[in-house]
């Protein structure tokens, strides 16, 4: 039914769409690129007002949240901005920042009067909103948001809490969100919310009290969404009545009829399907912080609607491109709240709402279709950082698909990122996901593969600093109360490298234990703070069993850990192995002295280590073997720990910008990293260490077992754009990532920009508003990065082909 052929594209140098074809999109895009985001307090205000005034039993979290959702959605402004082709908005601003006072919103309290002036991620805010937040909203949440509830529940002397407070061991994202999942939009498109409400009502009749309460909560929340859609419909009709432009009037009436129909009822057309998904997204973001909350396989969701509409003549390809481009811009118009300190770890990051394209169906057949190509065209046309586009790559892909993906990467300089289908499916099966469900995976946030609507995985639950385990082992950092496994004077007692390695492993285990322990405590609190009735309704499991997601009601339950700094840890351990244990070049006290002095007066030693000792990323088995051992060990210890929903933890290797954040708080390392310098991003080799070209990088990276990275991994590669000035190089580029995948690589992402251009962009940011680069799993505007991150991107090792 779905065509695998690439339909003819329109015009432009390479037969692509160009912005001149879509003036409305061009103007929306200009706004998104150039305007400062504005803080929207609507959601926070409605929620606070409801809770202050409600007579509902506040002790029943599920009922409270469901009633709050119905209230918020019924009272949410039904906004249609000029030129909109999709109705509704997540915030009241064209480019807005959502506030969740249940989480970290109160941390911008000190910044309310300065946030529009700060250098990193400034946001507009009106004086009225500052006062509303200070006077009414934040004080209400002061003793009941996540930060305070955790402190009250476990006590600030709790060791896990204290480690979290130090910021450089691990970060628990539940202080800011749950999110990081993909709802089952297919059931909304197939049955409509009315159908799901009907199903919930039927199940209620014979359900146990707990399940009955869940069904009731789902119904209330879904009624709220339908009410919001009705309000949008009425607003569209009102705007149409006074609209003088006949073409726009027609658009508004068409949109009104669509909002009248969906998401209440099953979608019948491409337009209805896209609006239904978007309305549900707007509603879900009133319940969920928009951090890595992802959309799934949009090309699969829309393929049949597109095919039918094209065949019936009710939609043209150009119209579909324009609608999808609007969807991209609408999704990209919400940015997450970022306290100033957040730029240490999430510099330049958007909401990371991922859209995955390509891949296969449940039966394993290649699923690249006409909408897959539309998505690629739109990604290239719109060229914005959010949504985060991920292309699944398979050996049976049509050659024109792989080539088109490569073209879009080169033309945008960074997106989409690529993922190996076979390896990802294998990794998911390894953690107990059925083959069919594994095939229906999409990515969450940055790079985390998830079975859509079935895995409740909070994939970004923990970011964990791996190299700090070495600092603990060497005692180069002073946290006396936590150094439980060894004393400094015992360092020279190690007879073998293996014995030292065991100590490092013990410290890794120690950090993982405390991170997961705190995450589990936060998860328990989330049940009373923010159960998610609407998400429960659009997920496989809760509606069928009556068990809510936070109690383990999804088909697959897990939590994700992202390990940061693996390459640095491998390299440093290898230096210790070589110089301390094998060559007796120096002993531990001498090494520690050098590290504590940050190589001061030991620059020669540092040069020697960088230039003469082997590093990860050069295809040397002995070095890579340390990495393999660590990956195996981390897989074993994380999978053995249960989360608060009785599911396992899944390890992954990606870093957002935490490699820079953790690095900034770290000391000098044996492999030559100086104090405060960033660690290598994700699974990418250390930049000064990679000297043997892409084949060696691939050999090293694929020597690690990617099937033991079910929470995903990211490999950054940087090329000069001028390299791709002929077709031959394009073929080599395609061969490069296909070879990497054949050898077992799971994911790879590219930044394709000339170094001179990046340096010029650092000096003259105004000239490059849409210059995009890959960070670690996500795309960011170069201008949004701190100088530190800009330098990191500029200094990343160039790969030549």
């Amino acid at each position: 039914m779905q065509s695998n052929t690439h339909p003819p594209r329109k015009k432009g140098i390479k037969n692509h769409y160009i912005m001149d074809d879509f003036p409305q999109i061009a103007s929306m895009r200009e706004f998104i690129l150039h305007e400062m985001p504005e803080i929207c307090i609507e959601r926070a205000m409605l929620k606070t007002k409801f809770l202050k005034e409600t007579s509902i039993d506040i002790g029943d979290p599920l009922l409270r949240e469901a009633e709050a959702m119905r209230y918020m959605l019924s009272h949410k402004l039904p906004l249609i901005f000029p030129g909109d082709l999709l109705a509704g908005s997540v915030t009241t601003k064209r480019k807005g920042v959502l506030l969740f006072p249940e989480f970290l919103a109160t941390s911008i309290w000190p910044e309310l009067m300065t946030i529009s002036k700060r250098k990193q991620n400034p946001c507009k805010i009106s004086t009225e909103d500052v006062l509303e937040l200070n006077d009414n909203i934040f004080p209400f949440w002061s003793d009941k948001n996540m930060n305070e509830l955790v402190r009250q529940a476990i006590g600030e002397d709790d060791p896990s809490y204290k480690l979290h407070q130090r910021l450089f061991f691990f970060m628990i994202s539940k202080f800011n969100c749950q999110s990081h999942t993909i709802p089952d939009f297919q059931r909304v498109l197939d049955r409509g919310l009315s159908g799901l409400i009907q199903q919930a009502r039927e199940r209620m009749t014979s359900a146990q009290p707990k399940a009955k309460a869940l069904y009731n909560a789902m119904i209330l929340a879904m009624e709220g969404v339908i009410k919001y859609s009705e309000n949008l419909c009425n607003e569209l009709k009102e705007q149409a009545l006074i609209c003088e432009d006949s073409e726009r009037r027609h658009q508004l009436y068409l949109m009104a009829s669509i909002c009248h129909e969906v998401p209440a009822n099953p979608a019948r057309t491409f337009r209805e399907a896209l609006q239904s998904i978007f309305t549900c997204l707007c509603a879900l973001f009133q319940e969920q912080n928009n951090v890595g909350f992802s959309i799934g396989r949009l090309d699969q969701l829309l393929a049949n609607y597109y095919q039918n509409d094209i065949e019936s003549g009710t939609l043209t390809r150009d119209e579909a491109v324009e609608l999808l481009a609007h969807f991209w811009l609408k999704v990209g118009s919400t940015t997450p709240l970022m306290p100033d300190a957040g730029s240490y770890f999430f510099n330049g990051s958007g909401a990371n709402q991922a859209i995955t394209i390509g891949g296969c169906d449940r039966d394993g057949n290649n699923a690249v279709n006409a909408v897959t190509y539309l998505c690629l065209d739109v990604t290239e046309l719109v060229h914005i950082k959010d949504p985060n586009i991920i292309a699944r790559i398979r050996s049976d892909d049509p050659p024109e698909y792989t080539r088109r993906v490569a073209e879009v990467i080169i033309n945008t300089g960074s997106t989409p990122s690529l993922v190996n289908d076979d390896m990802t499916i294998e990794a998911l099966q390894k953690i107990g996901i059925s083959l069919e469900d594994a095939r229906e995976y999409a990515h969450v946030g940055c790079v985390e593969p998830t079975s859509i609507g079935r895995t409740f995985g909070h994939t970004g639950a923990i970011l964990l600093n791996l190299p700090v385990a070495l600092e603990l082992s060497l005692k180069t950092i002073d946290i006396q109360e936590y150094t439980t496994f060894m004393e400094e004077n015992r360092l020279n007692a190690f007879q073998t490298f293996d014995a030292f390695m065991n100590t490092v492993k013990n410290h890794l285990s120690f950090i993982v234990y405390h991170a997961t322990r705190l995450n589990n405590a936060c998860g328990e609190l989330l049940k009373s703070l923010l159960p998610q009735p609407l998400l429960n309704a659009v997920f496989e499991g809760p509606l069928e069993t009556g068990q809510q997601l936070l109690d383990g009601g999804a088909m697959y339950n897990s939590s994700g850990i992202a390990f940061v700094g693996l390459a640095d840890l491998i390299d440093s351990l290898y230096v210790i192995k070589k110089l301390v244990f094998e060559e007796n070049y120096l002993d531990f006290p001498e090494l520690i002295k050098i590290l504590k002095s940050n190589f001061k007066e030991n620059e020669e030693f540092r040069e020697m280590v960088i230039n003469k000792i082997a590093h990860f990323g050069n295809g040397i088995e002995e070095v890579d073997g340390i990495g393999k051992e660590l990956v195996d060990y981390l897989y074993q210890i994380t999978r053995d720990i249960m989360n608060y929903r009785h599911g396992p933890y899944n390890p992954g290797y990606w870093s957002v910008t935490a490699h820079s954040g953790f690095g900034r708080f770290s000391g000098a390392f044996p492999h030559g990293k100086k104090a405060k310098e960033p660690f290598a991003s994700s699974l990418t080799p250390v930049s000064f260490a990679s000297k043997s070209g892409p084949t060696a990088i691939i050999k090293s990276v694929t020597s690690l077992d990617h099937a033991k990275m079910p929470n995903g991994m990211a490999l950054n590669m940087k090329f000069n754009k001028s390299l791709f000035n002929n077709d031959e190089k394009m073929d080599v580029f395609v061969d490069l990532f296909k070879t990497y995948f054949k050898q077992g690589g799971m994911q790879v992402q590219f930044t394709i920009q000339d170094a001179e251009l990046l340096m010029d962009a650092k000096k003259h940011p105004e000239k490059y508003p849409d210059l995009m680069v890959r960070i670690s799993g996500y795309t960011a505007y170069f201008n949004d990065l701190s100088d530190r991150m800009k330098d990191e991107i500029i200094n990343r090792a160039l790969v030549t082909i």
Partner: protein
Amino acid sequence: MRDRTRSDFEKWLTKISFPARWSYEKLKEWLVDPAHVTGPIAMLLYDLLIRSFITASKTNPVFKSLIGDFNATINIYTKDRSVMRCLIIDGSLEGSSSLKHLAEHPDAEIIFNSPREMIFTLLFIIDIYQDLVDDTIQIKGNPNVIYRYLFLVTYLNPLVQKIKLKQSDFE
């Protein structure tokens, strides 16, 4: 961020008079030696700064409006206890006051590693997150109380660029 905040501050310093800049640099040099910064000096500086907070809480109508109904007891002290102060913010009564001892049941506590760290934080706008990482400052109690307190301090800080609030904004 510590570097950025400092460089902002130092950029601002270039705009002020030479004697003030000279004094600032000299003070910084002098403070580098921990022996120069004793508890009584830190306490004196704190008392001077907190006096402006207390005065504003009683006399500045905009500041009073920002305090609103905020009631909080915040202990501020050094680990060696050479500085021990308690700030009581009472939005519903007479404004704020400072006690020369620690409250038994504070809502929050800011604990400095040493009088020197305290002086640096008060004078040179040190980044509080870096201080948490370095373990030079500890924060105990409800973090939201600290956030609200820092919001009020920001209003009084003449060195930061911020939204201008007028009495009419509250009417």
